């Protein structure tokens, strides 16, 4: 294969190595993706006076859970709060794993990266519990546009978490071999994976209040 310049070291005039610029561009497009979702949410919510109202049939069906007739009260704030903490913590562990590599402490790296992956798993487990509770009450995306938005946004976010989990899992396990041969390149990879991971966290920081709290 051909050797591509600036794969590892930064190009002097831009101050960046290729993958770093690449991931930022990718994140820019992700901003637009989630931007469209948020925009749709705003438009639908402000456009339909009944957006947040639970229709009678469903409210009745919900029984004890249906005292309130507002959709967002159906969402589980404590669980989401917990998930927020999990994700924030995973952001720190992620950045610490990178710091460990900078300090050339591979053992610590393994620890922090492992924790990051565990957090991601934890997030998914909590998410699954949350979804499951909805389904068991017969609440589906088709129940109303608020839930449709809720499932789409959190679902797409969850897909991003899974994607990050796969990448981080790889970098923790088989991918970590690279540390021995090309430590600098490996550190860059962790930085890039970290940027993505923090972005996933950042999206959640906005999802949490706008879906659960407002």
């Amino acid at each position, binding site marked *: 294969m051909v050797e591509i310049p600036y794969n590892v070291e930064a190009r002097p005039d831009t101050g960046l190595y290729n993958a770093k610029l690449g991931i930022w561009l990718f994140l820019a497009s992700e901003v637009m993706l989630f931007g*469209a979702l948020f925009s749709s949410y705003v438009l639908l919510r402000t456009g339909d006076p009944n957006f947040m109202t639970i229709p009678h049939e469903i409210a009745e069906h919900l029984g004890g859970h249906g005292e309130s007739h507002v959709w967002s009260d159906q969402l589980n704030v404590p669980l989401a709060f917990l998930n927020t903490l999990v994700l924030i913590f995973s952001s720190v562990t992620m950045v610490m794993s990178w710091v460990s590599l900078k300090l050339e402490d591979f053992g610590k790296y393994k620890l922090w990266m492992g924790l990051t992956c565990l957090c991601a798993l934890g997030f998914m487990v909590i998410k699954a519990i949350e979804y499951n509770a909805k389904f068991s009450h017969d609440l589906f995306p088709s129940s109303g546009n608020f839930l*449709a938005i809720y499932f789409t946004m959190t679902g797409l976010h969850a897909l991003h978490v899974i994607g990050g989990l796969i990448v981080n899992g790889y970098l923790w396990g088989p991918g970590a071999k690279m540390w021995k041969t090309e430590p600098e390149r490996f550190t860059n990879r962790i930085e890039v994976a970290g940027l993505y991971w923090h972005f996933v966290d950042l999206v959640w920081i906005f999802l949490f209040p706008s879906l659960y709290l407002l």
Partner: protein
Amino acid sequence: MSVLETHPEDHEHVHHDESWLRKYVFSQDHKVIGIQYGFTALCFLLFGFLLMLMMRWQLAYPGQPIPIVGGILGADNAPGGIMLPEFYNQLGAMHGTIMVFLAIVPLAVGAFGNYVVPLQIGAPDMAFPKLNMMSYWVYATGGVVMFASFFVPGGAANSGWTSYPPLSVTATAGQSWWLLGMVLLITSSLLGSVNFIVTIFQLRVEGLTWMRLPFFVWAQLVTAFLLLLAFPPLEAAGFFQLMDRVLDTSFFMPSGLVVSGEVVRGAGGGSPLLWQHLFWFLAHPEVYVLILPAMGIVAEVIANNTRKPLWGYKSMVYASIFLGFMSFIVWAHHMFLTGMGTTISTFFQTTTMIISIPSVIILSALLLSLWGGSIRFNTPMLFALAFLPMFGIGGLTGLPLGFSATDIHLHDTYYVIGHFHYVVAPGTIFAMFAGVYYWFPKVTGRRMSDFLGKLHFWPSFVLMNCIFMPMFIQGLAGVSRRLYDGGMQYAHAQPVLHWNQFMSIAAFCLFFAQIPFVVNLFLSIKRGKECGDNPWQATTLEWAAAPSPPVAHGNFPQTPVVHRGPYEYSPPEHPKGFMPQHATVPASEEG
């Protein structure tokens, strides 16, 4: 620091054990990927054209069996060879989709961008070769999905390339395939655009500063940004529509719908216009994705064949950046008649008028570049020159559409069809042809026949105008687009109806006019005249610093270092010659 220090020799041994599959199918070489893109896209261009020929038959001879292919279309589509309205709508939607997303964009960006950009900036390859390969294969998969959708029950998508809900949400299964295909195509474009931007930012060779980049590279850069930032909203909208169709959500479905006499019992509360906003937020920038690379190619060919620098290179660069920027804030000019108030329509009319200015600047600069040249009329130049007035007609007819008041009468008529076909067909397609003729020697080391090229050009030029000019007449008369019978029912269409046959016959002839091109293309691969490394005596790196075809791995035998701007033809210190970007001594014109 120089790229030279990356030592190709050390890696020589890797090359030998490359399998055929890795070399030609799952290749990571931007040149091979470019050719893969190019060939696939040309096939889709032909396919999109064939779909349109069937439609044009129906428009000219409504209710008569389609000759030749009529029998094989199946009883669901064309019983007895006579096209059904459902099938007409499928063809229309798929013609639009295929032409835009599977033919022109892959050709302009995937093929020309991929092949030429790394060469023009002196890079050994794209920044992320694996991503590049994935981008192609995701595109190809998207193409297969789109193609296969013709064979699902109910046929392909039939709600127009714009897929407006609620129609598209209630449409047959083909629409879900369309959405799936679009998600793949969008993903492919995103991967590609990240790659292009990083490549152009990071891999420019020493000395190749921003204002020394060939205009083509600039055009590709702006295009990549448009793809990067405009496509994701459509991806989101695609998910929404898929959910509306599959999971019965109501993102685009308002309350109280009665479809075919049945009350729709969904949750309701959705907004059909939300889709339009998200769609056009992509689709307007998308039209500049179709035109910018074309302008880039035309600029290269014109500079080369006038033997003088481009006039106003800098203003062209700034204009294209501005164009790219503005293209994100004009989208609602496709939605004037959805019930828009004065404030919003004023905003979008104003931005639409503003965006026409950079186009005028680019076009003026290209036209002024001709002044003082010593113009060579070879085949690529003919196509590039024809692009100018054709784009001119297409662009100018955008103006009456851009004023909301005049758009009232013209909206969704054949005037719109005429407007954009002038820009994309004799506009972009011609630029693509110019590109093929121009860079063919780069790929093969051989030239295409100039005679066959002219035999391709002149009939195509005349016929394109015969097809699309009458559309303005029909549009002014108020004939709507997407009419299965071409407007036969309408009294107001009668005075202009006879044009349908004229246009269709011209379209059939246009098909035959492509034969010299196809023959030329395939024959020249083996039989074309060998032409050396720099047959056009060009200054840009892809010609001047690399052999034709370029070195398989790494493109350049020696990494060039750039000393000057891209178009130093006939410079004052060496009026009879030209200065390649990397050269230390001038090259002179031969013959």
